[in-house]
């Protein structure tokens, strides 16, 4: 993990309220960024918003020393981050957190919902080629929110809430159908909490290996401040894990996602 003043190559809108930042980040890339890891981005300018924004890596490219982040405008901070221009500098800390682990699985299903598709694209690019069978399932609110579907290294199945792209259903329903046909050795997923809860119930019931990437507001991002907790099952009951260093990727059996 390093702190680096990275250079913005470009910022581009790629879907409704979703943009991609391409950053020249040689030091961070040199650390070896693994799928599911995130970077902690300080907001640009003299803002009164002090806290960094944890953003999953969509792609890290050693050949060009670039990192790509896909960011949803969720508030003032992510809106401010959209205003950066080529050659602007950003202070970025990373790579941080635990990554997805393919465990040598022969059949992997990738599941991404909404902005959670970004780290799943990263995992798919890295692991789909190693598996005998790989299918990616992406769910979006509608066609205008969809991204990351081009140049996939494996079969992609898409669903939308409004039916404007792919199947008019929930992504977890698409997944369930595929599981009925062939249960995978491993499912890697990131998305909104209700999607993750459904997936967790499904995979626990079917005894399938599943890794979930969680999201939580963070402060230090290093494991020191203890603000980004998630409840986890341990031998004698439950305790809180730190999403930033114990996660953001957790085994679905390990975390409690109850509201």
């Amino acid at each position, binding site marked *: 993990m390093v702190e680096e003043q990275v250079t913005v190559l470009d910022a581009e809108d790629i879907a409704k309220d979703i943009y991609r930042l391409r950053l020249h980040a040689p030091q961070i890339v040199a650390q070896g960024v693994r799928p599911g890891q995130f970077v902690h981005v300080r907001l640009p300018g003299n803002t009164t918003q*002090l806290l960094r924004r944890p953003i999953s890596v969509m792609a890290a490219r050693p050949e060009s020393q670039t990192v790509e982040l896909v960011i949803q405008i969720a508030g003032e901070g992510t809106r401010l981050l959209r205003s950066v221009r080529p050659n602007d500098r950003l202070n970025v800390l990373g790579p941080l957190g635990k990554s997805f682990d393919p465990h040598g699985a022969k059949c992997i299903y990738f599941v991404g919902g909404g902005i959670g598709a970004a780290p799943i694209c990263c995992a798919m690019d890295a692991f789909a080629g190693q598996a005998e069978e790989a299918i990616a399932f992406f769910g979006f609110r509608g066609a205008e929110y969809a991204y990351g579907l081009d140049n996939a290294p494996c079969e992609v199945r898409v669903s939308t809430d409004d039916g404007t792209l792919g199947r008019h259903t929930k992504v977890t329903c698409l997944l369930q159908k595929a599981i009925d046909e062939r249960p995978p050795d491993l499912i890697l997923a990131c998305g909104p909490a209700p999607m993750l809860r459904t997936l967790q119930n499904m995979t626990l019931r079917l005894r399938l290996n599943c890794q979930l990437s969680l999201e939580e507001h963070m402060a230090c991002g290093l494991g020191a401040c203890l603000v980004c907790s998630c409840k986890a099952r341990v031998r004698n009951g439950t305790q809180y894990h730190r999403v930033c260093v114990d996660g953001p990727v957790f085994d679905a059996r390990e975390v409690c996602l109850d509201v």
Partner: protein
Amino acid sequence: MSDRKADLKVRLCGVRLKNPVIAASGTFGFGREYDALYDIGQLGGISVKGLTLAPRCGNPPHRVAETPSGMLNAVGLENPGVDAFISEHLPWLLDKGLAVIANIAGSTVDDYCRMAEKLAPTEVHMLEMNISCPNVKSGGVAFGIEPDMVYAVTRAVKQHAGQPLMVKLSPNVADITQNARAAEAAGADCISLINTLTGIAVDAKRRRLVLANNVGGLSGPAVKPVALRMVWQVCKAVGIPVIGMGGIMTGTDAAEFMLCGAQAVMVGTANFADPMACPRIISELEAYLVAQKVRKAGEIVGALIEN
């Protein structure tokens, strides 16, 4: 450190600090995470994550909310307990060569006394008695409101303490100077302030409070004017050393607290915005001293020109 252009060394209750910048409790863990970024041995000291007699798992999430120029937290004293601190973290920290301040929080006077007893034979340099954690009902804040209670708990703990005893005051009181005087009268060796100001954050869209604990502690530059005022008042009210904190982001901020009378400062929330904040603030403070043509950090303590 020998190439310093100004002498940053300070002495606090007989403890030598390389410089007056101390990482504030609750923002810095036990130092290991930040030591991955820089050698924390260059800091004046660390006040470790608030310790309790038994391990605590803390509050449910959400534990944090961003606010203008600040943040609210409600971690709820999640910590491994004082015994685990002594066996697992303290030896490593002592090797780093910075002053180690054990921050202790209790739900009874007896809790504080037993923690002080456990820490007495260790090489911890100072105790910081947290009687002001706003985020748990039993986090000591019950002892931090009324001057009589501040006096009682300080007096009791002082009898068990093997190290200089620092009392961390809550700003959520009617008159902080009364509590400072009560701590001094009870035998406190030092006072640190301010802990966080209590606040809430509202999510208007969901019509709910953001923090699971409802109430949290406000920190960051938003609280600095309040913290400065309280440090300034307390430094006039007591004769024991004062450590100032509250929204310090730069060396100039640190100097402002020292001008108001603080002999050292603690840096908390700044670490989140800038993980290199503490070493940066040390360098900036040194640059300030040089610019002010001051050779020793101690010379600016209380050097405010009053109106």
